[in-house]
């Protein structure tokens, strides 16, 4: 017979209780009150015992909905000696060393998942996405943009012809062959000088960008940059990345409470902005290669970027920005210039 464990016994299905003690007698658990009256007499294997957690009391629930509770978790474990084996999470949770190991492991795992996991999964999903899907997505996005921010282009026809000729040269170096890309000219005051790529190969350039373009290589650079976005399915990757980030945060934090959700917004935005900068750099690198293959000068692309930057933020240029969807202009320009000298 084991030592008696002190606690209290709750009568089946009620809030009524008495001070009691539990004793293990072989495979039988006996609960009796202070006067020795037996309250429960049950085979240990039929008792549901709550796992150890912190300094929390242990609960022994019987099949008749009566239950025995004790604050003495060590004594409760002795009572069960040899009956319930197995590693319990409590062994890890009680030790600060394991907590430290867990912090390091969790940090490393999350870092790896954010840096390699999510972009990798997003890339794989983007490659597996059927082209018909990309086409539908592009049509609907364009329809929405046309309804909201885009207006028909007002570029004079010589400019338009020149833009289309330069676009054709850039498209010739696209992965899917020149027939797969299409240039659309639109006016968009709210977007300013800009160009954007849709997953099906449609590339939109705003009229507002054209006055900034001083050399052919600059326009080719812009088009090649957008074509690279199409070739690498960047917009699909961004869609999948954006869907994966909150899902990953939800899985890790588990119990989604208001606090963790609010605190997760900023890191989520920062991570997505960092992914976007990675994709932009890849597009810049591809564009530099196209310009070089066409015998052009990649420094021209850097000139255009700097001209746009000055327009936006003045002579000093725009400040470094963790929320930015593009790398800092000075860094992009330097990378493009050095690409030309290789």
């Amino acid at each position: 017979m084991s030592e008696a464990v002190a606690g209290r016994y709750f009568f089946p299905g009620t809030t009524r209780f008495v001070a009691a003690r539990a004793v293990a007698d072989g495979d039988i658990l006996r609960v009796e009150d202070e006067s020795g009256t037996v309250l429960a007499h049950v085979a240990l294997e039929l008792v549901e015992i709550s796992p150890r957690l912190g300094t929390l009391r242990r609960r022994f629930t019987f099949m008749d909905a009566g239950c025995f509770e004790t604050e003495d978790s060590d004594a409760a474990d002795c009572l069960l000696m040899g009956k319930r084996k197995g590693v319990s999470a409590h062994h890890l949770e009680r030790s600060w060393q394991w907590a430290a190991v867990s912090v390091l492991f969790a940090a490393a795992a999350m870092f790896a998942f954010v840096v390699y996991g999510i972009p990798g999964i997003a890339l794989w999903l983007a490659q597996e996405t059927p082209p018909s899907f990309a086409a539908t997505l592009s049509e609907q996005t364009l329809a929405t943009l046309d309804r909201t921010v885009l207006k028909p282009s007002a570029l004079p026809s010589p400019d338009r012809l020149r833009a289309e000729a330069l676009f054709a040269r850039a498209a010739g170096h696209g992965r899917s062959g020149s027939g797969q890309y299409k240039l659309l000219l639109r006016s968009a005051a709210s977007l300013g000088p800009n160009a954007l790529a849709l997953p099906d190969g449609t590339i939109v350039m705003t009229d507002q960008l054209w006055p900034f373009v001083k050399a052919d290589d600059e326009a080719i650079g812009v088009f090649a940059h957008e074509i690279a976005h199409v070739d690498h399915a960047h917009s699909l990757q961004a869609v999948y990345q954006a869907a994966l980030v909150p899902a990953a945060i939800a899985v890790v934090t588990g119990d989604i409470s208001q606090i963790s959700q609010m605190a997760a917004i900023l890191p989520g935005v920062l991570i997505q902005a960092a992914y976007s900068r990675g994709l932009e750099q890849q597009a810049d690198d591809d564009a530099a290669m196209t310009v070089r293959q066409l015998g052009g000068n990649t420094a021209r692309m850097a000139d255009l970027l700097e001209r746009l930057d000055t327009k936006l933020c003045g002579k000093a240029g725009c400040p470094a920005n963790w929320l930015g969807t593009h790398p800092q202009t000075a860094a992009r320009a330097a990378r493009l210039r050095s690409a030309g000298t290789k």
Partner: protein
Amino acid sequence: MDDIVVRPLSPAGDKQLHHFEFRGSGGEFFRIWIVNIALSLVTLGIYSAWAKVRTRRYFYGNTFVAGHGFDYHASPVRILIGRIIALALFGVYNLLLRISPYALLPAMILLGAAIPWLIVSSRRFNARNTSYRNVRFNFSGTYGGAFQAYIAWPLAGALTLGGLMPLAHRAQDYYYINNHAFGGKRFATVFPGWSIYKVYLLALLLFLGLVVGTLAFLLLLSPFADSAGGFGAGVSFVGMIAILIIMPGWLIIVNYVRAAGLVLALENTALDNRHTLQSEIEPGSLVWIMTSNVFLILITFGLFYPWARVRAAHYMADHLSLLAASNLDEFTSETFATQGAIGEEIAGFFDYDIGL
């Protein structure tokens, strides 16, 4: 424990005041929390169901009133099954919304129809898996009731440009509290409409202050006007500053409405018309705790999270008491079937997991 003393039956009319108490500690919960995360990562998320149960058990089990703690009994396996289904649905929903703007309407209608069901099943799952002194809680709200409180009322609030929103808030509190029962005895809360209007009026004033402040800031910085996306550099310097003002401001307002509404509902709550709750919770203090918690979590890269939760639990328990009309011996369990956790988990993913 000293509290394990059988109190003699108090004579009728002799009410006894019991303070709530939270006995958990930040350091202890930190170890539980970080081991939970590590094990969830090692098992690719599978352990997260066990982690959820351990976390809930820790908070419920360490919350005491009248010498006894609460218990949480949910089965991790059921939660895991619910979680897998919820994750799949969440992924599909998220993708649909991003892929096609036209999917938005059908998705919203579908989710709208599902919300009342999610609320009922999540509330019921949690109530039935919570006990105090060996007796379970129960939730008996219906789909129709949830539809009224969470769809019809907010719709009425929106159609009246927010004019009825405070009453919608109250309808949700009523639905939540008045459908809960302990040992077959009902909880009930009643409070006058003007008291909740007062809360929203103050929130509105705070919001106007925030809007004016942000606009003033943006006007000052307008020379740095920005543009983002496409080939041009995405300069959202001004946007970043706006976020730095708007996010904490909005957080404070949302937390204020939650805290003040919670206080209002709690201090008017009675069990079986005779045991009443008494609250000394100050909405201002609660807002301070919630808002500073978010800030501390951010600057510690999340490591403060366990202390943040323990801190909030301590504050709540320390300012809440139960004025009991008896020694609480009279409650006996209702019989009901246990149920799956699918609704609870979906509700969790779609952010309808609002408890008290």
